[in-house]
């Protein structure tokens, strides 16, 4: 029996950051054009309690299963008044904005600092972290951090960091001489990068906690976020993985950043599994920090429908890939088992699905009906539908089912019932790379441990045409199975 790498643990976290929504790409541009939108936007921001009790967020951190979420009547953003929901779940937690500001302050490695706080707020953020069971070490000596090199007055381009109306500090671009005259080092770009680092650090912290391993045991980290770190000579150069590893005290880890738009997490998990299988590294972490640019991307639709702003949280996730332990689910790496969409497939949907859906199953001698759950794009439909994009997850399931019918593996009249069995409702925030298939990984592990499913297929898509260098899109897939030796020892 071949031995395949396993997913040893996962972590999923959210940072509810309503006051950073205005720094998302869409709100930032619209507010510059129409400043009067600011009060409308502020009026529609959710409280932390509302964000925590939101059923889709509860599903992301593992307190609700996707199946249970599918049974909750919509709209989900109007929970019963007596709804009680914990901010921590089996997969991770939802932190509030003040805690996230503390992580931002800790993640800031530059002098002069990017995030400049007065003494009072610095101490407050340090205390906030110190009171958290998993983040306390991040708060150590934070209150004493030197702000001596900070400018006396915030430059006009600095971004105020507020909590409701209270100003906690200001976020700057690179204030050194080499930072001048470089748009890549302006405050809003560096805030994007530091948000990815801080939220990625949160997810990695939870992963280490859940996996029960020391930071020293991590060999390699692959970051799969959508930020583009670097200056004018190497925009998008990367280095985020190692920055997150450093933040989380992983002294033996190196790392690299892997880019493939939304499909980067799936590509990173496949790469991590291949590195483990080849014996290059034993324990590889895949981490994806949150996307500031995607905050408030649909805010106009929410204002138009008099709804709360639902894209108000940075999402982050992390996965630990390791050698076969006879217990955790395996990633199949047989020849042909990993799905890809070759250039020759062009952009025809049928060709795309033929390559990254049918081909891997054929290579393994499986039918679509041998898969217990498919995890395609898992965007929360409540966010996408009001913005006119429809239910992206449902669209993907219809195409998967149509391919099963065309392959002669499913009767047409059975499509809807089959989708009901192999599908799920989308539950992930629209954070670009975050919703792309892998949010189900934690739930799949739990369902396999309970003996409910044996095999899941993850299908991730990437809009690589957004790079303006090609008109192609991409797709990546992998199959995860219950460990064949699980429960036998």
């Amino acid at each position, binding site marked *: 029996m071949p031995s395949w790498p396993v997913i040893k643990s996962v972590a999923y976290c959210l940072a509810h950051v309503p006051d950073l929504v205005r720094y998302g790409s869409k709100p930032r541009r619209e507010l510059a054009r129409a400043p009067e939108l600011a009060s409308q936007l502020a009026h529609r921001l959710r409280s932390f309690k509302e964000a925590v009790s939101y059923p889709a967020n509860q599903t992301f951190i593992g307190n609700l299963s996707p199946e249970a979420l599918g049974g909750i009547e919509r709209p989900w953003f109007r929970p019963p008044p007596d709804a009680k929901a914990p901010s921590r779940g089996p997969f991770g937690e939802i932190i509030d904005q003040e805690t996230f500001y503390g992580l931002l302050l800790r993640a800031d490695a530059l002098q002069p600092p990017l995030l400049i706080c007065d003494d009072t707020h610095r101490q407050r953020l340090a205390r906030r972290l110190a009171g958290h069971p998993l983040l306390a070490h991040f708060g150590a000596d934070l209150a004493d951090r030197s702000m001596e090199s900070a400018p006396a007055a915030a430059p006009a381009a600095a971004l105020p960091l507020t909590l409701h109306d209270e100003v906690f500090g200001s976020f700057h671009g690179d204030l050194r001489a080499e930072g001048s005259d470089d748009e890549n080092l302006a405050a809003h770009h560096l805030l994007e990068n530091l948000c990815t680092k801080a939220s990625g650090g949160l997810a990695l912290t939870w992963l280490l906690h859940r996996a029960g391993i020391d930071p020293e045991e991590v060999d390699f980290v692959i970051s799969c976020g959508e930020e583009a770190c670097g200056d004018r000579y190497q925009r998008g150069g990367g280095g985020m993985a190692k920055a997150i590893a450093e933040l989380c005290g992983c002294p033996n880890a190196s790392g690299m950043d892997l880019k493939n738009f939304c499909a980067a997490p799936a590509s990173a998990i496949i790469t991590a599994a291949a590195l483990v299988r080849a014996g290059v590294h034993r324990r590889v972490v895949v981490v994806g920090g949150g996307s500031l640019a995607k905050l408030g991307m649909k805010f106009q639709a929410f204002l138009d429908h008099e709804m709360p702003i639902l894209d108000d949280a940075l999402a982050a996730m992390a996965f630990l890939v390791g050698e076969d332990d006879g217990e955790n689910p395996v990633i199949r790496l047989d020849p042909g088992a990993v799905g890809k969409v070759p250039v020759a497939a062009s*952009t025809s*949907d049928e060709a795309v699905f033929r390559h990254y859906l049918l081909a891997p199953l054929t290579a393994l001698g499986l039918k679509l009906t041998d898969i217990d759950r498919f995890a395609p794009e898992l965007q929360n439909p409540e966010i996408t539908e009001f*913005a*006119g994009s429809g239910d992206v997850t449902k669209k993907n399931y219809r195409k998967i089912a149509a391919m099963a019918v065309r392959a002669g593996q499913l009767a047409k009249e059975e499509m809807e019932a089959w989708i009901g069995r192999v599908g799920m409702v989308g539950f992930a925030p629209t954070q*670009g790379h975050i919703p792309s298939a892998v949010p189900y990984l934690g739930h799949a592990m739990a369902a396999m441990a309970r003996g409910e499913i044996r095999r899941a297929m993850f299908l991730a*898509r990437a*809009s690589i045409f957004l790079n303006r260098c090609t008109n192609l899109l991409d797709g990546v897939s992998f199959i995860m199975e219950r460990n064949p030796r699980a429960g036998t020892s």
Partner: protein
Amino acid sequence: MLQGKKAIVFGERDDISGTTIAACLRAAGCEILYEATACFV
């Protein structure tokens, strides 16, 4: 029906891409004036 017509094409990644729509329209004799594919997520 489309022979000699002009078309502006908007596609979507999770529906039908602009490239695919344009290829079909061209095959039907249509001239594509503009083509774009959007990603809304």
